Protein backbone atom coordinates (compact mmCIF):
# COMPACT_ATOMS: atom_id res chain seq x y z
CA UNK A 1 0.00 0.00 0.00
CA UNK A 2 1.30 3.43 -0.96
CA UNK A 3 0.79 6.67 0.88
CA UNK A 4 2.09 10.21 0.67
CA UNK A 5 3.59 11.24 3.99
CA UNK A 6 3.52 14.74 5.47
CA UNK A 7 6.13 14.65 8.28
CA UNK A 8 5.86 18.23 9.56
CA UNK A 9 8.55 20.39 11.15
CA UNK A 10 8.78 18.66 14.52
CA UNK A 11 9.44 15.30 12.88
CA UNK A 12 12.59 16.60 11.29
CA UNK A 13 13.60 18.22 14.60
CA UNK A 14 12.98 17.08 18.19
CA UNK A 15 10.82 14.13 17.06
CA UNK A 16 13.02 12.94 14.20
CA UNK A 17 13.24 9.54 15.91
CA UNK A 18 9.43 9.26 15.68
CA UNK A 19 9.71 9.61 11.90
CA UNK A 20 12.55 7.06 11.71
CA UNK A 21 10.62 4.49 13.79
CA UNK A 22 7.45 5.16 11.80
CA UNK A 23 9.19 4.70 8.44
CA UNK A 24 10.79 1.44 9.55
CA UNK A 25 7.55 0.05 10.97
CA UNK A 26 5.68 1.05 7.82
CA UNK A 27 8.25 -0.75 5.69
CA UNK A 28 8.00 -3.85 7.87
CA UNK A 29 4.26 -3.85 7.23
CA UNK A 30 4.71 -3.54 3.48
CA UNK A 31 3.70 0.10 3.24
CA UNK A 32 5.41 2.48 0.86
CA UNK A 33 5.68 6.11 1.93
CA UNK A 34 6.42 8.98 -0.48
CA UNK A 35 7.33 12.23 1.25
CA UNK A 36 5.43 15.23 -0.17
CA UNK A 37 8.15 17.11 -2.09
CA UNK A 38 9.25 20.44 -0.58
CA UNK A 39 6.38 20.51 1.95
CA UNK A 40 5.92 23.57 4.16
CA UNK A 41 4.86 24.18 7.77
CA UNK A 42 1.14 23.68 8.47
CA UNK A 43 1.07 26.64 10.85
CA UNK A 44 0.36 24.49 13.94
CA UNK A 45 -2.01 26.11 16.45
CA UNK A 46 -0.21 29.45 16.14
CA UNK A 47 -0.37 30.97 12.68
CA UNK A 48 -4.16 31.49 12.47
CA UNK A 49 -3.89 33.44 15.72
CA UNK A 50 -1.76 36.00 13.87
CA UNK A 51 -2.95 36.06 10.26
CA UNK A 52 -6.34 34.35 10.41
CA UNK A 53 -7.69 30.93 9.58
CA UNK A 54 -8.06 31.43 5.84
CA UNK A 55 -4.42 32.36 5.33
CA UNK A 56 -3.24 29.46 7.49
CA UNK A 57 -5.42 26.99 5.60
CA UNK A 58 -4.18 28.26 2.25
CA UNK A 59 -0.62 27.82 3.51
CA UNK A 60 -1.48 24.25 4.51
CA UNK A 61 -3.22 23.67 1.19
CA UNK A 62 0.04 24.17 -0.70
CA UNK A 63 1.04 20.74 0.61
CA UNK A 64 -2.20 19.16 -0.55
CA UNK A 65 -1.87 20.78 -3.97
CA UNK A 66 1.62 19.34 -4.37
CA UNK A 67 0.55 15.91 -3.07
CA UNK A 68 -2.47 15.69 -5.37
CA UNK A 69 -0.33 14.72 -8.36
CA UNK A 70 0.28 11.30 -6.76
CA UNK A 71 -3.35 10.82 -5.75
CA UNK A 72 -2.43 8.78 -2.66
CA UNK A 73 -3.95 9.15 0.81
CA UNK A 74 -1.82 11.53 2.89
CA UNK A 75 -0.46 9.96 6.06
CA UNK A 76 0.07 12.40 8.93
CA UNK A 77 1.48 11.43 12.32
CA UNK A 78 1.83 14.78 14.16
CA UNK A 79 -1.38 15.91 15.85
CA UNK A 80 -1.34 19.59 14.91
CA UNK A 81 -0.33 18.79 11.34
CA UNK A 82 -3.17 16.28 11.13
CA UNK A 83 -5.64 18.82 12.47
CA UNK A 84 -4.64 21.50 9.98
CA UNK A 85 -4.27 19.23 6.97
CA UNK A 86 -7.53 17.43 7.81
CA UNK A 87 -9.58 20.58 8.43
CA UNK A 88 -8.22 22.32 5.34
CA UNK A 89 -9.02 19.29 3.22
CA UNK A 90 -12.55 19.09 4.63
CA UNK A 91 -13.01 22.79 3.91
CA UNK A 92 -12.07 22.23 0.26
CA UNK A 93 -14.63 19.44 -0.05
CA UNK A 94 -17.51 21.07 1.87
CA UNK A 95 -17.24 24.75 1.01
CA UNK A 96 -17.08 25.66 -2.70
CA UNK A 97 -16.64 29.37 -1.91
CA UNK A 98 -13.62 28.60 0.27
CA UNK A 99 -12.21 26.26 -2.36
CA UNK A 100 -12.52 28.91 -5.04
CA UNK A 101 -10.91 31.62 -2.91
CA UNK A 102 -8.15 29.30 -1.72
CA UNK A 103 -7.37 28.30 -5.29
CA UNK A 104 -7.21 31.94 -6.27
CA UNK A 105 -4.48 32.36 -3.62
CA UNK A 106 -2.71 29.12 -4.59
CA UNK A 107 -2.61 30.35 -8.19
CA UNK A 108 -0.15 33.04 -7.04
CA UNK A 109 2.32 30.19 -6.61
CA UNK A 110 1.22 28.35 -9.74
CA UNK A 111 -0.76 25.71 -7.82
CA UNK A 112 -4.28 24.36 -7.66
CA UNK A 113 -5.98 21.83 -5.39
CA UNK A 114 -9.08 19.96 -6.53
CA UNK A 115 -9.87 18.44 -3.16
CA UNK A 116 -9.47 14.83 -4.26
CA UNK A 117 -7.18 13.54 -1.50
CA UNK A 118 -7.87 11.91 1.84
CA UNK A 119 -5.89 13.06 4.88
CA UNK A 120 -5.38 10.19 7.31
CA UNK A 121 -4.01 9.87 10.82
CA UNK A 122 -1.38 7.15 11.12
CA UNK A 123 -3.32 5.31 13.86
CA UNK A 124 -6.35 5.20 11.54
CA UNK A 125 -4.25 3.79 8.70
CA UNK A 126 -2.57 1.14 10.86
CA UNK A 127 -5.83 -0.14 12.35
CA UNK A 128 -8.23 0.29 9.43
CA UNK A 129 -6.03 -0.22 6.34
CA UNK A 130 -3.28 -2.52 7.52
CA UNK A 131 -5.36 -4.22 10.20
CA UNK A 132 -4.67 -5.53 13.68
CA UNK A 133 -4.36 -9.11 12.42
CA UNK A 134 -1.52 -8.24 10.09
CA UNK A 135 0.20 -6.29 12.85
CA UNK A 136 -0.21 -9.20 15.28
CA UNK A 137 1.24 -11.56 12.69
CA UNK A 138 4.31 -9.33 12.29
CA UNK A 139 5.08 -9.29 16.05
CA UNK A 140 8.26 -11.29 16.72
CA UNK A 141 8.76 -10.29 20.33
CA UNK A 142 5.37 -10.11 22.09
CA UNK A 143 5.40 -7.48 24.83
CA UNK A 144 3.76 -9.82 27.34
CA UNK A 145 3.36 -8.32 30.79
CA UNK A 146 4.17 -4.75 29.73
CA UNK A 147 1.53 -2.38 31.09
CA UNK A 148 1.09 0.60 28.82
CA UNK A 149 -1.03 3.73 29.08
CA UNK A 150 -2.04 4.86 25.59
CA UNK A 151 -1.89 8.65 25.64
CA UNK A 152 -3.77 9.96 22.62
CA UNK A 153 -3.80 13.65 23.54
CA UNK A 154 -6.30 16.08 22.11
CA UNK A 155 -6.10 17.18 18.52
CA UNK A 156 -5.89 13.94 16.54
CA UNK A 157 -9.24 12.60 17.71
CA UNK A 158 -10.98 15.95 18.02
CA UNK A 159 -9.91 17.71 14.82
CA UNK A 160 -12.52 15.77 12.84
CA UNK A 161 -14.68 14.13 15.51
CA UNK A 162 -15.64 10.51 14.83
CA UNK A 163 -13.60 10.48 11.62
CA UNK A 164 -11.93 7.32 12.88
CA UNK A 165 -12.24 7.26 16.68
CA UNK A 166 -14.17 8.59 19.68
CA UNK A 167 -13.14 12.22 20.30
CA UNK A 168 -13.23 11.83 24.09
CA UNK A 169 -12.65 8.14 24.78
CA UNK A 170 -10.55 6.89 21.90
CA UNK A 171 -9.87 3.16 21.67
CA UNK A 172 -7.73 2.59 18.58
CA UNK A 173 -4.36 3.29 20.20
CA UNK A 174 -5.22 0.80 22.97
CA UNK A 175 -6.05 -1.80 20.32
CA UNK A 176 -2.64 -1.26 18.74
CA UNK A 177 -0.95 -1.66 22.14
CA UNK A 178 -2.81 -4.93 22.74
CA UNK A 179 -1.95 -6.18 19.25
CA UNK A 180 1.72 -6.03 20.27
CA UNK A 181 1.02 -8.36 23.19
CA UNK A 182 1.18 -5.62 25.83
CA UNK A 183 -1.63 -4.68 28.21
CA UNK A 184 -3.40 -1.35 27.70
CA UNK A 185 -4.28 -0.11 31.18
CA UNK A 186 -7.45 1.90 31.85
CA UNK A 187 -6.43 5.54 31.51
CA UNK A 188 -9.10 8.18 32.13
CA UNK A 189 -6.81 11.04 31.06
CA UNK A 190 -5.86 9.50 27.71
CA UNK A 191 -7.40 12.37 25.75
CA UNK A 192 -6.74 15.28 28.11
CA UNK A 193 -4.56 18.18 27.09
CA UNK A 194 -0.88 18.25 28.14
CA UNK A 195 -0.66 22.04 27.93
CA UNK A 196 0.51 21.98 24.35
CA UNK A 197 2.51 24.90 23.02
CA UNK A 198 2.29 26.85 26.27
CA UNK A 199 5.64 25.21 27.06
CA UNK A 200 7.48 28.45 26.37
CA UNK A 201 5.00 31.28 26.95
CA UNK A 202 3.51 29.85 30.16
CA UNK A 203 5.45 26.78 31.19
CA UNK A 204 3.53 26.32 34.45
CA UNK A 205 0.47 25.14 32.51
CA UNK A 206 2.43 22.35 30.86
CA UNK A 207 4.05 21.30 34.13
CA UNK A 208 0.69 21.10 35.92
CA UNK A 209 -1.21 19.26 33.20
CA UNK A 210 1.60 16.85 32.39
CA UNK A 211 1.97 16.02 36.07
CA UNK A 212 -1.72 15.10 36.33
CA UNK A 213 -1.55 12.94 33.22
CA UNK A 214 1.55 11.08 34.44
CA UNK A 215 0.00 10.54 37.88
CA UNK A 216 -3.17 9.18 36.29
CA UNK A 217 -1.14 6.70 34.22
CA UNK A 218 0.90 5.63 37.25
CA UNK A 219 -2.10 5.19 39.52
CA UNK A 220 -3.69 2.91 36.92
CA UNK A 221 -0.71 0.60 37.02
CA UNK A 222 1.07 1.63 33.82
CA UNK A 223 4.82 1.15 33.62
CA UNK A 224 5.10 3.42 30.58
CA UNK A 225 3.11 5.64 28.26
CA UNK A 226 3.00 5.70 24.49
CA UNK A 227 1.67 8.52 22.37
CA UNK A 228 1.22 9.54 18.75
CA UNK A 229 1.73 13.27 19.40
CA UNK A 230 5.19 14.91 19.22
CA UNK A 231 4.11 17.83 21.44
CA UNK A 232 2.72 15.50 24.13
CA UNK A 233 5.86 13.39 24.03
CA UNK A 234 8.13 16.39 24.46
CA UNK A 235 6.07 17.90 27.26
CA UNK A 236 5.84 14.66 29.23
CA UNK A 237 9.42 13.57 28.50
CA UNK A 238 11.81 16.50 28.16
CA UNK A 239 10.00 18.60 30.78
CA UNK A 240 10.03 15.77 33.33
CA UNK A 241 12.86 17.22 35.40
CA UNK A 242 11.01 20.51 35.64
CA UNK A 243 7.72 18.76 36.51
CA UNK A 244 9.39 16.85 39.33
CA UNK A 245 11.28 19.91 40.54
CA UNK A 246 8.32 22.31 40.57
CA UNK A 247 5.74 19.83 41.91
CA UNK A 248 8.15 17.94 44.20
CA UNK A 249 7.16 14.65 42.60
CA UNK A 250 9.19 11.64 41.52
CA UNK A 251 7.45 10.61 38.33
CA UNK A 252 9.61 8.11 36.46
CA UNK A 253 7.30 6.61 33.80
CA UNK A 254 8.98 6.77 30.40
CA UNK A 255 6.97 7.96 27.39
CA UNK A 256 7.61 6.52 23.92
CA UNK A 257 6.08 7.09 20.53
CA UNK A 258 3.87 4.11 19.76
CA UNK A 259 5.82 3.27 16.61
CA UNK A 260 8.92 2.89 18.80
CA UNK A 261 7.04 0.24 20.77
CA UNK A 262 6.01 -1.38 17.49
CA UNK A 263 9.66 -1.43 16.38
CA UNK A 264 10.55 -3.27 19.60
CA UNK A 265 7.74 -5.81 19.16
CA UNK A 266 8.69 -6.31 15.49
CA UNK A 267 12.26 -6.93 16.71
CA UNK A 268 13.69 -4.25 14.41
CA UNK A 269 17.29 -3.06 15.05
CA UNK A 270 17.67 -0.96 18.27
CA UNK A 271 18.79 2.07 16.26
CA UNK A 272 15.39 2.07 14.56
CA UNK A 273 13.49 2.09 17.86
CA UNK A 274 15.58 5.13 18.85
CA UNK A 275 15.17 4.60 22.58
CA UNK A 276 18.31 6.61 23.30
CA UNK A 277 16.41 9.76 22.29
CA UNK A 278 13.94 9.43 25.16
CA UNK A 279 15.01 11.78 27.95
CA UNK A 280 13.32 9.68 30.65
CA UNK A 281 15.10 6.33 30.34
CA UNK A 282 12.85 3.45 29.22
CA UNK A 283 15.56 0.79 29.63
CA UNK A 284 14.66 -0.35 33.14
CA UNK A 285 11.02 -0.89 32.22
CA UNK A 286 11.96 -2.73 29.03
CA UNK A 287 14.74 -4.88 30.58
CA UNK A 288 12.39 -7.84 31.35
CA UNK A 289 11.69 -8.03 27.61
CA UNK A 290 15.38 -8.30 26.83
CA UNK A 291 15.65 -4.80 25.39
CA UNK A 292 19.01 -3.25 26.18
CA UNK A 293 21.04 -0.30 24.98
Amino acid at each position, binding site marked *: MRYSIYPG*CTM*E*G*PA*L*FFLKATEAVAEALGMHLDEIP*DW*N*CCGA*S*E*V*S*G*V*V*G*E*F*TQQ*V*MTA*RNLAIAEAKGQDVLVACS*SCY*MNMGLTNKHFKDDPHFAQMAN*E*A*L*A*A*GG*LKYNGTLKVRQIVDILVNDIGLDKIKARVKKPLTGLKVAGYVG*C*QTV*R*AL*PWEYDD*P*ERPVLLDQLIEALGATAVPFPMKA*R*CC*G*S*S*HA*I*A*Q*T*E*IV*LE*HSKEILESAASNGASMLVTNCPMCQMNLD*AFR*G*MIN*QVHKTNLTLPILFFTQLMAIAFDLPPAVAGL*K*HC*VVSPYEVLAPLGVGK
Partner: protein
Amino acid sequence: MVDNKISSAPVKYDNSFAKEIYALENGHYAQICMQCGMCAVSCATHDIMDYSPRRLFNLVRVGKKEEVMRSNTMWMCTACCMCKVRCPRGIPLVDVMHDLKAMAIKQGYVDYPHAAFHQAFWQEAFSRGRVFEGGIMARFILKRGLGEIKKLLALGMKDMGMGMLKHGRVPLVPPRKIKGLKELQQIIQRAQALQEKEAK
Protein backbone atom coordinates in the same frame (compact mmCIF):
# COMPACT_ATOMS: atom_id res chain seq x y z
CA MET B 1 -29.14 46.55 52.16
CA VAL B 2 -30.64 45.47 48.92
CA ASP B 3 -30.75 48.22 46.35
CA ASN B 4 -34.34 48.36 45.22
CA LYS B 5 -33.93 51.46 43.13
CA ILE B 6 -33.73 49.63 39.83
CA SER B 7 -34.61 51.74 36.83
CA SER B 8 -37.35 50.47 34.60
CA ALA B 9 -35.72 52.10 31.59
CA PRO B 10 -34.28 49.59 29.10
CA VAL B 11 -30.54 49.02 29.40
CA LYS B 12 -28.72 50.31 26.35
CA TYR B 13 -25.64 48.52 25.15
CA ASP B 14 -23.10 49.86 22.74
CA ASN B 15 -23.07 47.19 20.05
CA SER B 16 -20.22 48.60 17.98
CA PHE B 17 -17.73 46.20 19.60
CA ALA B 18 -20.02 43.22 19.08
CA LYS B 19 -20.29 44.16 15.41
CA GLU B 20 -16.52 44.34 15.18
CA ILE B 21 -16.26 40.81 16.60
CA TYR B 22 -19.07 39.38 14.46
CA ALA B 23 -17.24 40.63 11.37
CA LEU B 24 -14.21 38.43 12.12
CA GLU B 25 -13.81 35.21 10.13
CA ASN B 26 -15.46 33.03 12.77
CA GLY B 27 -16.74 35.88 14.93
CA HIS B 28 -20.35 35.45 13.84
CA TYR B 29 -20.46 32.22 15.82
CA ALA B 30 -20.33 34.24 19.04
CA GLN B 31 -23.85 35.41 18.16
CA ILE B 32 -25.37 31.94 18.42
CA CYS B 33 -23.93 31.11 21.85
CA MET B 34 -26.82 30.19 24.17
CA GLN B 35 -24.78 30.62 27.37
CA CYS B 36 -24.99 26.99 28.48
CA GLY B 37 -21.45 26.83 29.84
CA MET B 38 -20.45 23.52 28.27
CA CYS B 39 -17.25 25.18 27.02
CA ALA B 40 -16.35 26.26 30.55
CA VAL B 41 -16.67 22.80 32.06
CA SER B 42 -14.81 21.22 29.13
CA CYS B 43 -11.91 23.65 29.04
CA ALA B 44 -8.43 22.43 29.95
CA THR B 45 -7.39 25.84 31.28
CA HIS B 46 -10.69 27.23 32.57
CA ASP B 47 -9.34 27.58 36.11
CA ILE B 48 -6.73 30.13 35.07
CA MET B 49 -8.83 32.04 32.55
CA ASP B 50 -10.10 35.52 33.43
CA TYR B 51 -13.42 34.61 31.84
CA SER B 52 -14.64 31.31 30.41
CA PRO B 53 -15.52 31.45 26.70
CA ARG B 54 -19.20 31.62 27.68
CA ARG B 55 -18.61 34.73 29.79
CA LEU B 56 -16.36 36.22 27.13
CA PHE B 57 -19.14 35.92 24.53
CA ASN B 58 -21.50 37.60 26.93
CA LEU B 59 -19.04 40.46 27.44
CA VAL B 60 -18.86 40.81 23.65
CA ARG B 61 -22.63 41.23 23.52
CA VAL B 62 -22.69 43.93 26.14
CA GLY B 63 -19.85 45.82 24.48
CA LYS B 64 -17.08 45.42 27.07
CA LYS B 65 -14.22 45.82 24.64
CA GLU B 66 -11.40 46.51 27.09
CA GLU B 67 -12.41 43.59 29.34
CA VAL B 68 -12.46 41.22 26.39
CA MET B 69 -9.33 42.43 24.62
CA ARG B 70 -7.23 42.61 27.79
CA SER B 71 -8.44 39.25 29.12
CA ASN B 72 -6.19 36.24 29.03
CA THR B 73 -8.98 33.92 27.86
CA MET B 74 -8.00 33.49 24.22
CA TRP B 75 -4.32 33.26 25.10
CA MET B 76 -4.93 30.46 27.61
CA CYS B 77 -6.67 28.33 24.97
CA THR B 78 -4.51 25.27 24.23
CA ALA B 79 -6.51 24.36 21.11
CA CYS B 80 -7.35 20.99 22.67
CA CYS B 81 -10.75 21.22 20.94
CA MET B 82 -12.81 19.68 23.76
CA CYS B 83 -15.23 22.65 23.76
CA LYS B 84 -15.43 22.58 19.98
CA VAL B 85 -16.40 18.91 20.04
CA ARG B 86 -18.99 19.37 22.79
CA CYS B 87 -20.62 22.74 22.00
CA PRO B 88 -24.33 22.01 21.46
CA ARG B 89 -24.52 24.95 19.07
CA GLY B 90 -21.61 23.73 17.00
CA ILE B 91 -19.48 26.79 17.64
CA PRO B 92 -15.85 26.20 16.65
CA LEU B 93 -14.60 27.96 19.77
CA VAL B 94 -10.95 27.33 19.04
CA ASP B 95 -11.27 29.20 15.75
CA VAL B 96 -13.09 32.09 17.42
CA MET B 97 -10.23 32.26 19.94
CA HIS B 98 -7.75 32.41 17.06
CA ASP B 99 -9.69 35.32 15.57
CA LEU B 100 -9.61 37.12 18.90
CA LYS B 101 -5.85 36.58 19.16
CA ALA B 102 -5.29 37.92 15.67
CA MET B 103 -7.44 40.95 16.43
CA ALA B 104 -5.63 41.56 19.73
CA ILE B 105 -2.25 41.49 17.97
CA LYS B 106 -3.50 43.78 15.21
CA GLN B 107 -4.81 46.32 17.73
CA GLY B 108 -1.76 46.18 19.98
CA TYR B 109 -3.13 44.17 22.93
CA VAL B 110 0.08 42.20 23.20
CA ASP B 111 0.92 42.17 26.92
CA TYR B 112 0.76 38.39 27.26
CA PRO B 113 3.93 36.52 26.27
CA HIS B 114 1.72 34.21 24.18
CA ALA B 115 1.21 37.04 21.69
CA ALA B 116 4.98 37.23 21.15
CA PHE B 117 5.18 33.44 20.86
CA HIS B 118 2.49 33.37 18.18
CA GLN B 119 4.22 36.15 16.25
CA ALA B 120 7.60 34.43 16.58
CA PHE B 121 6.14 31.21 15.21
CA TRP B 122 4.48 33.01 12.32
CA GLN B 123 7.62 34.94 11.38
CA GLU B 124 9.67 31.76 11.45
CA ALA B 125 7.15 29.91 9.26
CA PHE B 126 6.84 32.80 6.80
CA SER B 127 10.55 33.46 6.42
CA ARG B 128 11.71 29.82 6.11
CA GLY B 129 8.67 27.80 5.05
CA ARG B 130 9.36 25.48 7.97
CA VAL B 131 9.88 26.20 11.64
CA PHE B 132 12.94 25.52 13.73
CA GLU B 133 12.65 25.53 17.54
CA GLY B 134 15.85 27.55 17.99
CA GLY B 135 14.56 30.16 15.57
CA ILE B 136 11.21 30.51 17.33
CA MET B 137 12.96 30.83 20.70
CA ALA B 138 15.35 33.50 19.43
CA ARG B 139 12.52 35.54 17.90
CA PHE B 140 10.45 35.15 21.07
CA ILE B 141 13.27 36.37 23.32
CA LEU B 142 14.00 39.27 20.97
CA LYS B 143 10.40 40.39 21.29
CA ARG B 144 10.03 39.90 25.02
CA GLY B 145 13.48 40.64 26.36
CA LEU B 146 15.79 38.70 28.62
CA GLY B 147 13.24 38.58 31.46
CA GLU B 148 11.63 35.60 29.74
CA ILE B 149 14.90 33.66 29.86
CA LYS B 150 15.24 34.36 33.58
CA LYS B 151 11.69 33.10 34.16
CA LEU B 152 12.39 29.92 32.20
CA LEU B 153 15.71 29.34 33.95
CA ALA B 154 14.07 29.68 37.36
CA LEU B 155 11.75 26.81 36.43
CA GLY B 156 14.70 24.61 35.43
CA MET B 157 14.66 25.14 31.67
CA LYS B 158 18.45 24.86 31.44
CA ASP B 159 18.39 21.20 32.50
CA MET B 160 15.57 20.61 30.07
CA GLY B 161 17.65 22.03 27.23
CA MET B 162 20.70 20.03 28.25
CA GLY B 163 18.59 16.86 28.41
CA MET B 164 17.33 17.46 24.90
CA LEU B 165 20.86 18.13 23.67
CA LYS B 166 22.27 15.03 25.36
CA HIS B 167 19.62 12.83 23.78
CA GLY B 168 20.15 14.19 20.28
CA ARG B 169 16.86 16.05 20.12
CA VAL B 170 18.12 19.52 19.20
CA PRO B 171 19.22 20.08 15.61
CA LEU B 172 22.08 22.54 15.91
CA VAL B 173 21.73 23.91 12.42
CA PRO B 174 18.35 25.09 11.25
CA PRO B 175 16.80 23.11 8.40
CA ARG B 176 17.18 24.66 4.96
CA LYS B 177 14.53 27.03 3.75
CA ILE B 178 12.07 25.29 1.46
CA LYS B 179 12.82 25.53 -2.25
CA GLY B 180 9.45 27.03 -3.09
CA LEU B 181 9.70 29.75 -0.43
CA LYS B 182 9.11 32.59 -2.86
CA GLU B 183 5.98 30.93 -4.23
CA LEU B 184 4.74 30.13 -0.71
CA GLN B 185 5.14 33.77 0.29
CA GLN B 186 3.30 34.91 -2.82
CA ILE B 187 0.49 32.48 -1.98
CA ILE B 188 0.30 33.77 1.59
CA GLN B 189 0.29 37.40 0.49
CA ARG B 190 -2.48 36.75 -2.03
CA ALA B 191 -4.44 34.89 0.67
CA GLN B 192 -4.11 37.82 3.04
CA ALA B 193 -5.26 40.26 0.37
CA LEU B 194 -8.28 38.06 -0.41
CA GLN B 195 -9.06 37.71 3.27
CA GLU B 196 -9.05 41.48 3.75
CA LYS B 197 -11.23 41.98 0.72
CA GLU B 198 -13.70 39.38 2.03
CA ALA B 199 -13.87 41.07 5.44
CA LYS B 200 -15.00 44.36 3.89
